[in-house]
Every structure is written in C-alpha cells, then in structure tokens.
C-alpha cells in the first residue's frame, strides 16, 4: 500500500524563524506515529502543513491530495484534534452531533451516541459548562465516529488529569485504531504514548532528527548500566548520554553492537523520554 503521507523538502519560513527546514518523511498506513520535539521545534507547523492550514514550500502528498489545493476533499478523509478544547464554547452536545452528522459524509451517528452514552455528557449541555476533560471526551466521541483514514492529534491531552489521559488513549486504541487507519500524535507526555506508538519521529529546530519504527529504535539505542570500574571503557564507545544512579553509570548508546555492550553491564531498552532528553541536549542553551 502506498504511503499515507509523503513529504519531501518541506520548508516553512515564518518572519524570522525557519519552522521547517527541508523536511522529508513518509508515513505508511496502519501506523501510530509519535511526533516528538521540544517547544517551538516545528511540530505544529508540520501538522498544519499536512492539514492544509498553512502555506509551505516543497512537496507534500496526503492520501493522494495536495493539502494546499484540495483541502476540502482531504478533510473528508482526515480528522484532527488540534490542541485541547477548541470546540466552540456556545455549542450544545446535541447541536454539534447534529451538525457533524449532516455535513460529514463519513460520520456514524449511532457510534457517536454510543460513545457519548458512556460519558456523563448531557445532550443539552453546552461546551462552556464542561470541564476540559469532558470537552475532550466530546471531541473524541465525534472524531471516533468518523471513519477517517488519518487522525492527527496535536497535544490532545494537555492539561487533563491522569484518568482522562489514560482513558483517552485507551479508547483510541480499543475502539478506533485498526490497520486501515493512521494516527499521528504530538505530545509532551511521552511516557503515556510510549507503549502505543509504532513509529517515532523526533523533530528539532525544524529538522527530523530521528525517524524510525519502535523495533528499530529498540535495536539501535541501548542503555547499559555500568559499574564504576567499566565506566572508562564505556565512555570510549562514545555514548550519547551518561547519568549516575546509585553509584552506577547509565550510558545510552546509538548503534553500538549489542554483544559489545552486554560485556559492559546490564543492558535494557531506553525509555523514549530518556532518549528524547539525550537527543535534544542543548536545545535551549
């Protein structure tokens, strides 16, 4: 199957800053891609380009459409939750369901109402009367009832409590995701999406610094817990990062042979957040 998104030489210049700098990538169907980067790295700009919300230079193809020219058609196949709480504050639950049901050709009303029935939302409730978590529940119910090929989530759980956050990703995995769908998610709460991602993209200063599937990440990056006497040997292998825990050193290696590292100490798979911190070192300096 062909790629859901293929980008090459994607650039976007804001007045003084280069938000995207010759970015190229491909996203295959049936993947859950985490687009992770520090604030101001260009995540949102990349998503906006994919959604046709902003102009850019370079080549970009999303589901066979050019987001600049065929945005209206593209949005029939793509859903997005851009940031939390962008639902209009005046609208009622029943109104927004009614509206989307009549303007979206791929919306399944029964499905939406089934999702809503599992929440505390009342049909006559207005968005302004809801908590942030409830707004996201409503938005998610709308989005999950749309049979879209691509779902884009930009910081969907920012500011929610842990119950809502867990529930959000759980619903997404259990009731929404299948092999025909693709999800791109950006978030700072890396630990929470770590287990659901199939692909990982790190973006820094408008460039993709890592683009790999999780298996490849697991093979390429290895963390080793090394006793003090072996530390010098470990440092000789040029680790990405080093930190101290309980008198031992933990080294993070990129592309060093597994056998070689096993000789130094106990090896394990690094968490995405550790990997992220190591990769982004010095971003704000």
């Amino acid at each position: 199957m062909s790629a859901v998104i293929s980008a090459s030489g994607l650039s976007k210049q804001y007045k003084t800053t280069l938000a995207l700098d010759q970015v190229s990538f491909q996203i295959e169907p049936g993947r859950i891609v985490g687009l992770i980067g520090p604030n101001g790295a260009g995540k949102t700009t990349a998503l906006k380009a994919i959604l046709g919300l902003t102009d850019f230079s370079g080549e970009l193809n999303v589901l066979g459409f050019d987001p600049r020219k065929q945005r209206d058609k593209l949005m029939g196949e793509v859903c997005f939750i851009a940031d939390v709480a962008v639902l209009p504050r005046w609208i009622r639950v029943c109104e927004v369901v009614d509206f989307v049901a009549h303007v979206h050709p791929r919306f399944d009303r029964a499905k939406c109402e089934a999702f809503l029935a599992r929440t505390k939302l009342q049909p006559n409730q207005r968005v302004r009367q809801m908590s942030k978590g409830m707004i996201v529940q409503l938005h998610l119910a709308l989005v999950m009832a749309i049979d879209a090929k691509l779902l884009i989530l930009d910081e969907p759980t920012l500011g929610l409590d842990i119950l809502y956050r867990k529930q959000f990703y759980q619903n997404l995995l259990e009731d929404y995701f299948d092999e025909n769908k693709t999800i791109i998610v950006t978030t700072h709460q890396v630990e929470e999406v770590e287990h659901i991602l199939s692909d990982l993209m790190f973006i820094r200063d408008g460039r993709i610094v890592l683009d790999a599937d999780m298996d490849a990440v697991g093979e390429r990056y290895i963390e080793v817990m090394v006793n003090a006497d072996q530390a010098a040997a470990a440092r000789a292998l040029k680790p990405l990062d080093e930190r101290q825990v309980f008198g031992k050193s933990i080294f993070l290696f990129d592309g060093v042979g597994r056998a070689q590292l096993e000789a130094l100490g106990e090896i394990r798979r690094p968490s995405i957040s550790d990997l992220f911190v190591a990769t982004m070192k010095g971003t704000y300096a």
Partner: protein
Amino acid sequence: MKTSTANTLFWLVKREFWEHRGGFFWAPVVTGGVFVLLNIMGIITGEVFGARNGFNLSFGGSQNNMRLLSQALDKQSMDTVGAGLDMVMYSSTMIMGIILGFVVFFYCLGALYDDRRDRSILFWKSLPISDTATVLSKIISATVVAPFITVIAGALTGILMLLMFAAALSLHGVSVWHLLSLSHPLQVIANMLGSIPLYLLWALPTVGWLMLCSAWARSKPFLWAVALPIAVGIVIGWFDLLGTVNVPNSWYWRDVVARILGSVFPGSWFGEVSGIGGHNPAELLSSLSVTRGYTALASANLWLGVAAAIAMLAGAIWFRRWRDDS
C-alpha cells in the same frame, strides 16, 4: 449519510442561527414585546386619564360623533385612516429594523474573527467544508435569515398592535372590523418581505467590508473597520483644505463610508430613490413602498456597491483560507 453542497450550506446557516440566536431571534422578539407592552401602557394611560377627566378618546368628543365619523368617512379620509393603521404596523418593524442594523453590523464584524480568537476555527476547519461555503453561509445569515426573522417578528407585532388599537377604539363605539378593513396588513407584510432581496443587494458592501476586516484583522476588527475609512476621510478632507488633491469629500463620505458602514440599516437605500414624501400619510407610504424602493436598482451606486462587495468577499474567503494565526 449523504451530504450535498446545498445541504451543507443549510446546516451551516443553521449553525449560525444556533450561535447567534440572541441577535437573530431574541433581539426582534424582545423588541416587539417591549413595543407591545409600551403601547398597552399607553392605551391604558389614555383610557384611565380619559375616564378620570370625563371625556373619551375620540375625535369628536362623544361616542356618537365617533361612530358617525367612522361611518361617514369619505374616500380621502378612509385612505388616511388606512394608511395610519398601516403605519402602526410598519412602526414596530421600523424599530426592529434599526436593531437589525446593529445586529447585522456586529455579526459581520465577528463572523470570521471570533472563532479565530477562541481558536474554535480549528474545529470548524477539521470538517470537510470549503471556506467559500462557510463565508457564503454567513452572508446568507446576515442578509436573508436575520432580516426575514425581523420581518416576521415585525409583522406579528404589527398585527398585534393593530388588534390592540382596534380593540381600544371599539370601546368607544368604532367597529373593529370596519377599521381593520381599512388597513392593508397583507400588503404591508408583502412589502416588507419584498424588501429583503433589496436589503441583500444594498447591504452587501457593508457586509463585505466588515467580513473582510473580520477575516483579515489579527485583533480589534471593529477598530480597523471603522477607524480606517474615517481616517482616510479625514486625510481627504485635509487635502481638500490644502487644495492639493481634489477628491470630492462629500462623495467619499456618502458613497464610500456610508455604504461600507451604514448600509446594513434597512431602508437606507431610499437615498437612491427620488420622490419620497407626499401630502398625506397614504401618499408617503406609497412613496416608501417596495416597488418604489426597487427603483434603487436603477442607480449605479447600488451595483457598484455589489461589485465592490463581491471583491471584498472574495478577499474575505481568501483570508479565511490562508490566515494562519491560530
């Protein structure tokens, strides 16, 4: 579920109505209610004072005279009474028309700005709806839906008023049906409904300018929409004073500023209609009738306004599509 362009447009307009129920629906309804209430109070005041002072509210002073009067009305005065009653019907809609002007003005100013400010544009833009359809639905809401509701509310209030006055007069021996038969409620309603297409064409430059500002301004669309044309006018006046550039100042204020800011007020097109007025209420009313109003279609002012509006609305759609600040 199938969705067609017309269906999408219908739901977009419905959405606008939901959001602006207060301005589009409650404003005319409340105005009508207050209007009726004030008139009831007026009638009661009249009756009470009349009774206290021992005379009746009638032209001749006694009931018999009044009855005789109404029976003996000649053609001329029957027309006058009829026109007076029609005037009563129009009066409520005229007040509501002024309210409508303000409602539409501020609606247009916020139409493409408010959702950018509260970022809900990101939700609307996540749906497969073209920006052209979005802007079009807002134009329809401003120029068709809002005036239509105003006309309906105005007509109902007018009929209520008519019945009230007739009932009050009937207390003094004037036959209700006779009086009512002198008025032309259907014609009044037809006149008002018939004015809506004219309103659309005439208000379009104001709608276009306000929506352009609404789609373009990064903040404070009101300031841009109002201050910009006024500042330009002041500069023109200044140049005129110096005698360097000769742009007719009065032309600018009347044919530009008034058209891009004031044309949402219904009836403002009568500036383009000649021969307004008359020697009696009936003549005045007929000079303000919808058929006379439509002679404004012959003015270049109206069509230049429409052309400018189309350009400004195209600009508004473009900004709606590409403005990237949310």
